[in-house]
């Protein structure tokens, strides 16, 4: 018998090996285990929530949301800092060059 024929025969034998298969039987005390599991599952709702949050899609979406919020806060902070800087510079230069008009009261009441 040639090699190819032999391989074909082996494949056919493997395919027909489950022809007279018997049904596998469940392990004993299945009902007890089902009841125990049902009781456990009613308690572990938090576990289910944890499992849901830890799913890659949910975790990744959460991470993206956090990063987006961070970026938004940084951008809004930068723009408000710039406004404050402009105000501070204006105040400083007005103090330096005394833009305000001195009144007669200021001239005669110089503080030490």
């Amino acid at each position, binding site marked *: 018998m040639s090699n190819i024929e032999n391989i074909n025969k082996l494949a*056919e034998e493997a395919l027909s090996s489950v022809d*007279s298969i018997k049904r*596998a*039987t469940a392990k004993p005390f299945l009902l007890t*285990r089902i009841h125990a*599991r049902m009781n456990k599952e009613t308690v572990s709702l938090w576990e289910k929530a944890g499992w849901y949050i830890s799913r890659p899609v949910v975790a990744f979406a959460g991470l993206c949301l956090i990063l987006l919020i961070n970026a938004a806060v940084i951008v809004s902070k930068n723009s408000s800092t710039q406004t404050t800087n402009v105000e501070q510079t204006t105040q400083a230069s007005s103090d330096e060059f005394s833009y305000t008009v001195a009144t007669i009261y200021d001239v005669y009441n110089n503080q030490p």
Partner: protein
Amino acid sequence: MNQPDLIAQLQQGDEQAFTKLVEEWQDMVYNTALGIVQNEEDADDITQEVFIQVYQSISSFKGISKFSTWLYRITVSKALDHEKKKKRKKRFGFVQSLFNNQDEEILLPAVFDHPGVELEKKEKARELFNVLKNIPDKQRIAFTLHKLEGKSHQEVAEIMNTTLFAVESLISRAKANLKKELIKYYGTLKDTI
């Protein structure tokens, strides 16, 4: 007690009816799950999950299809979900192992022996189950229900919610693909000897 009465009692939350249901159908659920996941512990887990789901959602069973068909559908869907979860865990474990410096135990692919196979055919069946993992899910389900559960093509069509023609085609393609995979396997085996 006949089946409609049993279901009616179960819908009313009767514990004894649930016990009878488990006793009557446990082997069928376990054997189907075992054929798909090829692991006894996993099949046991799935069997438990199936009966819990049946208990929780029996009110939604309207009797349009046969109860056994409904049960088979739940079992197949749970078994496939279980497989997906396991694959995801494996992938995550692989990524973890890339960042882990400690030497860890290398897990070899498990060899599966179906307890219902005759002793003299065990080795050949082991090889068949090994290549069964490589064919598409639909073909695998149709083949498993037909060969392992002894369901007729018509019954498989009802369980898979498809036509008789589609099931015949699925089973025929499953056999062809399995033969191809087996020839590939025996071919490499000859090369190594």
